Each structure stands twice: as C-alpha cells, then as structure tokens.
C-alpha cells in the first residue's frame, strides 16, 4: 500500500482501515499522524480538497500562444537544454580561442601552460554547470530555483577567486608591476562577450525571467569574458584582474538585473 491510497481512502469519505493499512502505518514515516485522535487531520485535509476547476475557453488562448511561436527565437529556445547549453558554452570557448589564436597575450610563452589550461578548464566547467542550470529554466525543480540567488553570487565571485588563487602571469617585473589600464580591459571583455549575452536571450524560454536568473546570466557572461581575457591580457596585477576582469560579470549582472525591472510581459 502507498500513501496515495491512504489519501484516496480519506477522499472517499472514510477512514482507511484493514491489515494493509496497519502494515503501511508501521513502516510509513508520514501517514500515522493522519490517523491520530480519530483521524482528525486526515479527515480535515480530505475535506479541504476542492473539485477540479473548469478551464473554460482557455485552450483557445493557449493555442494562440503556441501558433505565435514562429521564427528564429522560437526555434532556438525549443531546442533541448543540453543542445542550447553546448551552444552557449561553445560561443564562450570560441571567443577564448579567437583571442588565443589572433590576439594572444605577449608573454604567453613565458608562463605556466598547465596553469593556464587548468584555469581555463575551471572557467569552462563553471560555464557548463551554470548554463545547464540557467537554461533548464522553469522545468528545474523548485529547490534549484530557490537556490538561484546563491548560485548567482558564486558565479560572480569565481573570477575574483581565480585572480586571488591562481595569479597567472610571468614573474617579469614589467608585468607584475603593471597596473595596466583596467578600464580598457573591462570595456574590451564586456563588449566582446556580447554574443554570449545575446545568445542567452535567444535561448531563454521564459517571458518573465526571475531577476536572480538574469543576474546569473550576467555572472556567466563575466566568466566567459575572463576566459577570453586570460588568453589576451598579460597583466598579472591583482588590482587589474579584480577591477578590469572580475567586475565584468558584476556589470552585466547589474545591466540584466535592471532590465528585469522594466515591464516585459503584456497579454
């Protein structure tokens, strides 16, 4: 016997009884409470169950919505979540590779290649985990949605954490001392990562996106920007890395968070 059968018994207007019920109550952690004190709780819960509500002509509206799902964005956001995630991460990796091949940092040959690849792998793994979570959207379990704010903070802190734990650069005094121009790196990374943000918007299925989700999307854009900047920017100055690189995610999170304040949906 299952808990659902106990519920159905109460819904039928009786207190379930019999050997099967007794056996269930001995092993079930939740149902015994329903039977205490004349089964008051089971009977009251059953009494509170309402009949199903008629849907009226709602189907016509749903059908209209479904018929309006045409065009590029409709096709893109209908793709399965692993496909959309792979595409989103693919854009970030392509941006990083383009820097590595076309605008590689001057001191690339001087510093630890394993450290560079480990750091890149950490960023790519974060992008994979984050984009899967982000693009699952409203079909993700309630607990995952409730933790979205915490996840956003983690993604926002990751670039700063990497800058602190894995200082990536040569020991050359020139680069160690270089404050560089964090503003230039910030602008370069923030603009170059625009295709990532645009693709996320094309992939997002919800019309009203929760703010925590948009902040996560901004933070992931920041991670993508850090991936490409580590291939491009030779500065290993902590101040530069924190101000010029790690703040890109914060900036995108702020921009997307502000977008969520504007009215988006009208029916």
């Amino acid at each position, binding site marked *: 016997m299952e808990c659902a059968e106990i519920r159905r018994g109460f819904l039928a207007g009786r207190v379930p009884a019999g050997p099967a019920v007794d056996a269930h109550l001995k092993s079930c952690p939740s149902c015994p*409470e329903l039977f205490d004190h004349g089964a008051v709780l089971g009977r009251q819960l059953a009494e509170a169950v309402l009949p199903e509500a008629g849907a009226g002509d*709602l189907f016509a*509206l749903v059908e209209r919505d479904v018929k309006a799902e045409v065009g590029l964005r409709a096709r893109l956001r*209908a793709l399965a979540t692993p496909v959309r995630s792979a595409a989103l991460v693919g854009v970030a990796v392509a941006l990083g590779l383009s820097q590595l091949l076309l605008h590689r940092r001057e001191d690339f040959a001087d510093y630890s290649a394993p450290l560079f690849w480990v750091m890149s792998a950490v960023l790519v793994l974060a992008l994979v985990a984050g984009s899967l979570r982000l693009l699952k959207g409203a*079909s993700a379990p309630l607990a995952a949605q409730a933790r979205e704010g915490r996840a956003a903070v983690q993604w926002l802190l990751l670039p700063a954490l990497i800058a602190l734990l894995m200082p990536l650069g040569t020991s050359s005094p020139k680069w160690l001392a270089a404050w560089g121009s964090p503003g230039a790196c910030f602008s370069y990374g923030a603009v170059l990562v625009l295709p990532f943000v645009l693709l996320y918007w094309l992939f997002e299925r919800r019309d009203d996106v*929760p703010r925590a989700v948009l902040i996560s999307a901004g933070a992931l854009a920041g991670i993508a920007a850090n991936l490409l900047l580590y291939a491009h920017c030779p500065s290993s100055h902590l101040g530069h890395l924190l101000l010029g690189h790690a703040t890109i995610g914060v900036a995108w999170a702020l921009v997307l968070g502000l977008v969520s304040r504007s009215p988006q949906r009208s029916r």
Partner: protein
Amino acid sequence: MGAYVAGDAAAFRVIFERYAPLLLRAMLRELYVREEANDLVQQTFLLLHRARADFDPTQKLKPWVFTIAMNLKREYFRKKKRRPERSLDAESAVEPAVAALGAAQVDARRTLARVLAELPPDQREVIELHWFDGLEFPEVAQVVGASVSAVKVRAHRGYVRLRQALGDDAPLPPLAAEAAAGNRDRAGSI
C-alpha cells in the same frame, strides 16, 4: 506528451484537457483572481510547448507540468511580494461547490487554511502538492527536487504541526456513511 513531441498536434489538446483543470485548481487555491490563475496556467502550457524537447518520455508528465506551474506561481508571488494566505478560505468565494458546505465545515476549512499558511514553506508545499494536487510522494519529490524520504519527513513534520495547531477538539468533518445518514435524516424531516 511523447506523441506531441513526435509531431501530433492534437495530442496537445489531450494534455491540456487532462492537466488544465488540475493546474487551475492549484492556482486558484492561492490566487484571488480567476484571470491571474488563468494567465499562469496559460503560461505553463506555453512553457510546456517551448520545453517539449526536454521531456523525458520514460518519466511521468504530471510532475513535470507541476514543476513548471509551481515555479511560475512562486515567481508570481515573489513579484507581488506577498505570500498566499487564507487560501482555502479565498477559494470558497470562487468555487460554487464550497458554498454548499455547512457552517461547521467552512469553519474547519478556514482553520486548516490558517494553520497551513503558518507552516514553513517546504512543509506546506509538500502537503499541498500531495493532498490538494493529488501528486504521489515520488512525484512531489521530483517537483521539489528532494528525495522521497526527505519529502515524507517534511510531510510528517507538517502533519505534526497541523494536528497540534488544530487541537484535539477540532471539528470533525462527517464521514461518507455519517453524511449519508444525515442526508437521510434531513430528507425524512422535510
């Protein structure tokens, strides 16, 4: 759902007819305005359509549909910045079936609604999904993203609090047999 994903457009109507009444009931339990409940159900089916490629045909559809719907409802209340209260009480205003209840039963429903609203959200959620939306505990576990045993423990804790809050002298709704006898008595006295 498998048929719909495979391209059978008519299957969508079947899914709608099966789940829309359940979802509307779930929405109306905590919303005061029918139009808003309709809007959330409409959004649920639109997201279901957009996410159809994600559906795993080896899994049940009901918990998946409810996951989408409950996420939308939670976001709705977050944006409105209010928690649902007096849910069953409010429902009585829009559901004609409830109007036929006796005063004692309406009181019992109100009391239950009040103590339910005071439960911690994770316990209330589990009890509502199981009792009022008719999901089995493994389905509830899928919706909330917890193990079945964790969900049963939450339900137990919620039941204990509910029963304590209701007290031992809470009015008992009549059993089917008692109600039938009562109806016969009333019929006889007319």
